[in-house]
């Protein structure tokens, strides 16, 4: 059995890229803020509790609790699942992914989604939008994932990755969103269209 255990990967792969889904390849936040989420009594919550939870989720907040599994967490997953299914793909992002495939890049879809429960809908969405990929990975810490797997390029919108990618020798590219105006100093590259990323990764 090979033994590539450790933070320094056995090989690095120059033509491999990790790409996030939510708010990178789709309009997740817009869908969450403006989408319709009908109440269902089958979810064992009162209507008032559901509306309260929905507001918390839209604000990016959570219900304080020292427990792992709660009614709020279940509601959070259900709302996010609906967003993942209904979010629109960014047309320019789809073209970029197809360009990667045509040019023999190895593509890793790298997401924070809980793949145990979101795998099927994620795969359906990718196929429906003609987005090619080689691997589907779930990682809360994408910098650690890219570093461990020898991936030099990451397209992702998260503050943490934008700020810390370069420290770990990962080139991070992010779609410029309104919330990014409050970013502290960093070495990642923000883009308006994926054409810019296409140019940068060939430098």
């Amino acid at each position, binding site marked *: *059995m*090979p*033994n*590539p*255990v450790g*933070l320094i*990967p*056995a*090989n690095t*792969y120059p033509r491999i890229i990790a790409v996030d889904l939510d708010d990178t390849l789709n309009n997740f936040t817009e869908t969450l803020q403006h989408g319709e989420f009908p109440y269902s009594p089958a979810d064992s919550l009162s209507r008032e509790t559901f509306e309260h939870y929905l507001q918390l989720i839209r604000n990016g907040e959570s219900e304080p*609790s*020292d*427990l*792992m*599994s*709660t009614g709020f967490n279940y509601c959070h997953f259900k709302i996010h699942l609906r967003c993942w299914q209904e979010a629109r793909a960014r047309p320019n992002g789809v073209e970029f992914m197809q360009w990667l495939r045509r040019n023999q890049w190895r593509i890793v879809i790298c997401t924070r989604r809980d*793949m*145990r*429960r979101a*795998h099927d809908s994620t795969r359906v969405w990718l196929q429906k939008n003609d987005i090619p990929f080689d*691997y*589907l*990975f*779930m*990682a*809360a*810490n994408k910098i*650690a*994932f890219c570093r*461990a*797997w*020898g991936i030099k390029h990451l397209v992702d919108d998260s503050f943490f990755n934008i700020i810390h990618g370069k420290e770990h020798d990962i080139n991070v590219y992010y779609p410029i969103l309104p919330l990014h105006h409050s970013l502290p100093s960093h070495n990642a590259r923000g883009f308006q269209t994926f054409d810019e990323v296409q140019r940068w990764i060939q430098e």
Partner: protein
Amino acid sequence: MDPRVTLLKEFSSGFIEGKAKIETDQFGFEFLEWLLSAGGALEYGELTDTRLLHKYKIVDIPEHRMDDLMQLHVMKQFNVCRYFGVEKNDVFCFNMDNNHKTDNTAIIPEMSSALDTLRTCLLGLGCEPLIIASGRGYHVWMRLDEPMDNTLLYEFMIATAARALLPLLVGGADHRAVKFSFYPDINVIDAVSLRLFGSQHVKNNSFSHVFTPSGLLDEGDSWKYFEHFIRNKTTPTATIKAALEELRKAT
């Protein structure tokens, strides 16, 4: 074949063929190529929050390759988790976890109470469980003489778990401290898997010791008990059906 692998294969014939989740410290494209080299496809991978632990859900695994993976499992090279049959199963399991965000590998009083009540309840219904320590609690397995419909198994597990939590509710303790998951779960049957006996828990690296009323057995005795359980403690499906009728009447 390693007799431990034979036992694991004998334990259940109902797990989905060709599908498994692998938990391991190994990662990287070379490892992934090796993992899939004898057949199988990666459905998805995961880097967990625990160290650099990775999980790989593999499908279309040829039978001989599944045997190889099981061999590596009993050699503690990695954990193999299996998926339950979609319609019927000849094993089922209550997964009891400490539901707290912190210090959740501790055995809390609520867990001990719920486990004790569950075991007493199952024995009272004529069913003897195999109890295995897991990182955050226990896996309480039952083995049947023939496959049984998942809907009935799920109903049986819901009813007995509710009984197990009743003393906590009556005593004013927080029953949410113990989280029950049911395998097979008819709502997420293809999404969730469970570690086989012989695994090492991902958080504390502890072996999946068998738990008896007199305490945890060491690794060698746990394997002996596992064999004894398979040979002597299989429950007739008629017993579960009769128990379910009793539980329905009681509720």
